């Protein structure tokens, strides 16, 4: 009676899905940016607000932000965070959120993603592994794990990104431990699949086929093609040069890569390379005591470092991609960014970039979207998650253009939009010279802090956001450090960041437009 598990559901982490399925993005990437409210013309309101913002900020905003600043409490995150490291190196973090009665968000973060696919011809393995983990043969039974989870009752899903793979079952606290041999608890099931994964070559080949189906389905999105070109151009020297889904040739060949897959698991699915993040109606001490016996036999192993094999490109690169379907033309302006470092000025500025560049209140957004009406959407293609990474990655400004205008003006239209985007980015280099720079920056900090907190609206959201940032320095105080670093920013920090980062040699510009008979 039950339909088989939908592969769609399991790859939420894969950004193209998230975009195409409104409302399904819960588990995609850290839910820090609050989604736009759907019910009315918020964009228009915000526009007017910003126009006024520039004018009024001098008179009004200082009073507001003085208030906001003085009121900012020392410790911002409201829940208690507890950490214990087991003898085998497994970090266990428990976040107590007792108001969500009987809810258990039990997450495993594996510090390996497509960045760890270093061998030529073996891209896409991290994502494939995410699928395999759901096919674990609990008690040597085909589909044993999935059936046991289904009997237990849990929402179970996962996603894969460049640096990490995140598994996030959600169930009742009462389901942590089993009721009998036949009804194992979530703790037993999770510990078993991570530390003693049991899968066959047949299962491997089946899932490789499913991944191929996924690739083909997503191949109709022009953004996949742009992403492939962009990463190849920016990172010829680093495994960031391919997408999480992998190269098409590699995905085609995946069924033959069983041995490589086993090696991937043996290398990266190790306790010292994983973090358990548990949030919900739980007690930390009790959890530590229960978890330890299940995970202690998992053997640690040193994880090989990921090294760049050359140096990044030294000049600006531009490329046009013809597309064979009649889609809206796209412009991507991308910059290589510094690696994430919690507490650093660079990372703190990165947190405010969405508000500075692509929020409905940002000058660049207003100019393109409302004043000139040359684009109908402007945003960061991968959010801030594009550059919150172990090694330097990328900020992608993506604009969707109007078909009719492109039909009329062609390349000149592209040139105009690109020039406007570059000018908007350039303006940040003079940010501190704005008359309202200080006031505006304080407003942005305040908005950032409150939007950050507003996103912490459920145990699952809290755990996911925590895991996302915790991985960098493994510091349980990571939220406070990140927020404090943003609080410390001065207008000149913005200038300096922009001058250092937004330079031609860090830049790639891509355009995409319909061309009958094109072969993408």
């Amino acid at each position, binding site marked *: 009676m039950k339909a088989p598990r939908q592969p769609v559901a399991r790859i939420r982490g894969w950004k193209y899905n998230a975009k195409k399925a409104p409302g399904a993005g819960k588990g995609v990437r850290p839910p820090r940016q609050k989604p736009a409210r759907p019910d009315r013309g918020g964009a228009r309101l915000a526009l007017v607000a910003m126009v006024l913002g520039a004018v009024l900020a001098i008179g009004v905003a200082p009073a507001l932000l003085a*208030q906001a600043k003085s009121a900012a409490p020392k410790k911002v995150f409201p829940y208690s965070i507890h950490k214990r490291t087991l003898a085998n190196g497994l970090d266990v973090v428990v976040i107590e959120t007792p108001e969500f009665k009987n809810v258990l968000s039990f997450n495993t973060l594996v510090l390996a993603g497509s960045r760890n696919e270093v061998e030529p011809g073996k891209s896409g393995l991290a994502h494939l592994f995410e699928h395999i983990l759901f096919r674990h043969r609990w008690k040597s039974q085909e589909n044993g794990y999935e059936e046991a989870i289904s*009997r237990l009752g849990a929402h179970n899903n996962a996603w894969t990104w460049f640096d990490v793979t995140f598994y996030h079952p959600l169930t009742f606290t009462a389901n942590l431990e089993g009721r009998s041999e036949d009804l194992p608890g979530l703790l037993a099931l999770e510990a078993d699949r991570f530390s003693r994964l049991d899968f066959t070559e047949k299962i491997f080949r089946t899932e490789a086929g499913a991944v191929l189906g996924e690739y083909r389905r997503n191949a109709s999105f022009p953004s996949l093609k742009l992403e492939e070109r962009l990463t190849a151009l920016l990172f010829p020297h680093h495994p960031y040069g391919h997408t999480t889904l992998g190269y098409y040739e590699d995905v085609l060949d995946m069924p033959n890569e069983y041995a490589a897959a086993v090696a991937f698991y043996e290398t990266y699915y190790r306790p010292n390379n994983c973090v358990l993040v548990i949030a919900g109606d739980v007690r930390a001490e009790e959890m530590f005591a229960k978890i330890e016996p299940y995970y202690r036999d998992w053997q640690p192993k040193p994880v090989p470092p990921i090294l760049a094999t050359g140096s990044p490109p030294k000049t600006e690169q531009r490329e046009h991609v013809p597309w064979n379907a009649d889609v809206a033309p796209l412009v991507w302006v991308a910059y290589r960014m510094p690696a994430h470092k919690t507490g650093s000025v660079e990372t703190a500025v990165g947190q405010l970039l969405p508000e500075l560049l692509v929020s409905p209140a940002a000058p660049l957004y207003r100019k393109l979207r409302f004043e000139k009406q040359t684009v109908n959407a402007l945003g960061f293609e991968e959010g801030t998650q594009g550059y919150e990474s172990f090694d330097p990655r990328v900020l992608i400004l993506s604009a969707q253009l109007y078909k009719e205008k492109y039909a009329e003006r062609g390349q000149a239209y592209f040139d105009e939009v690109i020039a406007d985007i570059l000018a908007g980015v350039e303006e940040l280099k003079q940010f501190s010279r704005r008359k309202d720079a200080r006031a505006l920056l304080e407003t942005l900090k305040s908005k950032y*802090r409150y939007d950050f907190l*507003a996103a912490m609206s459920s145990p699952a959201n809290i755990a996911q956001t925590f895991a996302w940032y915790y991985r960098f320095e493994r510091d349980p105080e990571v939220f406070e450090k990140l927020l404090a670093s943003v609080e410390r920013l001065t207008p000149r920090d913005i200038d300096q960041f922009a001058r250092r980062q937004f330079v031609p040699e860090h830049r790639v510009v891509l355009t995409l437009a319909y061309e009958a008979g094109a072969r993408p």
Partner: protein
Amino acid sequence: MRESNSAPVVRWLLVLSATLAVGAAPARTQQVSVVSLDSPAPLVTVRVMVRAGSAHDPEGLEGLAYLTARMLIEGSFGDPRAPVTKERLAEITRPWGQGAMPTVQVGKETTTFSMTVPREVLPRYVAQIFRPMFTQPLFEARELDRLRAETLTTLRSNLRLEQIELVGLVTLDNVLHAGTSYAHPVATERGAEAITREALQRFYVTYYRPEHLVLGVSTREEAVVAPLREALAGAGTSAVPPLERRPLEPPPAVQGREVVLVALPNAIATGLHAGFPLTINRRHPDYWPLYVANVWFGTHRDSFSYLYDQFRALRGYNYGDYSYIEHFENRPFALFPPTGYPRRYQYFSIWIRPVQHDYAVHLLKALTWELEHFVRTGLSEEQCALAKNKARVLYLSLAETTERLLGYRLEDAFYGLVPGYLESYLEQIDAVRCEQVNAAIRRHLQAANLKYVIVTDDEVAPKLAEAIAANQPARGKDPAEYQIEVREENGQKLYLVPEAKRALLERDAVWAHYWLDIPRDRIRIVPAERLFVTAALP
């Protein structure tokens, strides 16, 4: 059946006011009711539920509840010499985060304002925004004109011509409640055009008085709750005379089967909807057994359920197929039911997402046969157990965030549910026995009296009407499309049907030969551009 069940409906309306006092401030006339959670979060979620919605729109002024609500936020408020305009509002709230900007949802019987405010700025928020917004709305005429124009655009182009799924869902809701105050969407064209500034003020004095308001707060701390409650004490005062309160009648019973075909220009597929009014809501003892039955039959956006399995998973007709025992707002876009749309009168419905035009009649028969079959056979013990297990897991999503927890608390206040819906959810599910499920199915579900809404292309619609009325076999997919091997032998097609696929083909044949028995005079074709002009169907 209808008569015998209307008594509880009336009764719970009476119980409502009594039960509301639970967790509320000491009962005093003209007092705002309060519901709360116990969250330590540094952002306080605040909701204000007005016990009036679009069902309270006076006849001919459909859209009044909606425009009043929007105008409270966007039509300026406070001191007329220094009003908080919508621009100023955005400016003030910006440093407090996206959530500090109020939003509003308008349902049939309630209007719900939501905002999330940092605890430390709450006093300022109350003084600058919350109090003046609810007590001194200015209803500026130019903002009314703008919102009216936006509403008309939404009705005329977006809803009628772009949202093929939503237009079907809204139309079914309307036709099931034909002739009652529930029969129109959030606004109609004529209604929106006729609404004046004075009408807004009159709606406001009638329904925004403290005794009609329920305040929901994510914390119980009196220091937080009290200023909010007190701020609402002055709501709903103005010099204009109140409106006559519109009575809310139950929907008429459906007699036999009838079809409304909505004809859209350039529709590339056909969406199917069917439903009938239910006589129960959350307060009825049969609610939970029926809930479990529906989880098995048609859980929204979930591959677990039967309809999805039959139509999408096994046969690949469309993106999904679901059933409902309560109104579910915003179905095309929401994975779980949004809170804020409680109703005393509920309806059962089936939603078959758009399918290829050629298969519409076949699937219309299929959905009807399946409903009939479901009523006839009920669920086995094993199916009940699976459905109960699934229902339990759904709780995790329904109760996921503070906003949802608070949203359900407000709905509890509307229904007069003690203990609340989510508070008792798991216990209620556990307590359901399979014989109760089957009894509830037999008591409340049926397939003989159905209203169908079909949204299709305007060129296809007349042919579809004839095909439905013709009462002829209507085939769905060819066996070849199920990866069944076909051979040509002596000019004849020979299907090599594997044992595993026999049941599938047999069921297809049953569907194809099911008689809907809907005469042509019970099938109406309505051009989409004539929908939502007034509350009546054209």
